């Protein structure tokens, strides 16, 4: 009897737990991510048209997108984009900027050093550790396997 009740209960819970809307989430991520990248492409084309070289273009576009991501996070707009787009807002470099500004704002009350400046890197820190660390290994390997 007890077992049966447990099973019934589990079935009930499974019925009531909201299913993530996989299809809709994927479509929204595709659209939002696509739009952000297309905006980046617009800046790329613009910087190319004013005569920047390849390296300057890619650095310039990163700087602009990081600026926009930070500003929209400060204004509270990026949160709304994130709610609609999910990973579509998180994966682009603007989402990286968002991951810096959001916790830094949140922890401002803890001061400008241990609050803002330290919490800025709560996600950006690991990103840099793994990114820079693995890039050095790739560079070293490229010397070993020259060709």
């Amino acid at each position, binding site marked *: 009897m007890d077992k049966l009740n447990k099973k019934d209960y589990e079935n009930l819970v499974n019925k009531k737990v909201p299913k993530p809307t*996989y299809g809709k*989430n*994927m479509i929204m*991520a*595709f659209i939002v*991510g*696509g739009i*952000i*990248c*297309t905006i*980046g*492409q617009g*800046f*790329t*084309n613009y910087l190319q048209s004013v005569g920047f070289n390849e390296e300057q273009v890619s*650095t*310039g*576009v*990163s*700087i602009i*997108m990081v*600026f926009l991501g*930070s*500003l929209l996070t*400060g*204004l*509270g707009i990026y949160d709304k984009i994130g709610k609609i*787009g*999910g*990973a*579509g807002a*998180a*994966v*682009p*470099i603007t*989402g*990286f*900027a968002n991951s*810096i*500004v*959001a916790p830094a*704002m949140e922890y401002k009350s803890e001061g400008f050093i241990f609050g803002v*400046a330290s919490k*800025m890197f709560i*996600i*950006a820190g*690991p*990103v840099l550790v*793994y*990114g*820079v660390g*693995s*890039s*050095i290994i*790739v*560079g*070293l*390997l*490229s*010397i070993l396997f020259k060709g």
Partner: protein
Amino acid sequence: MEYIKTFIIGGAICVLGQIILDRTKLTPAHILVSFLTAGVILGGLGLYEPIAKFGGAGAKIPISGFGYSLSQGAIKGAQEKGIIGAFTGGLQATAGGIAAAILFGYTMAIIFNPKTKD
């Protein structure tokens, strides 16, 4: 046509992230770190380059493109300056983005306050 390619590649990379978010217990922070590292590794193996050639900003704006830039910089540095270059190349190639993230991230966090949740 260029914009369509960008949209599709950029969108597809984000959908991949969304699938991982919905089907696993990983958080957006995990996605950022793993996509970045994937970009570094794929860049090192020369597999990201065709995606970047085809997708333009669609491959470079996602965080995996940041990893690609890191690895390309490190490889270029290593080929030109040896071991020292392997250490300096990655950060050199991405210095602008990182510096911007630090400056703008700090400034915006000082200027604005978190919006109260509804």
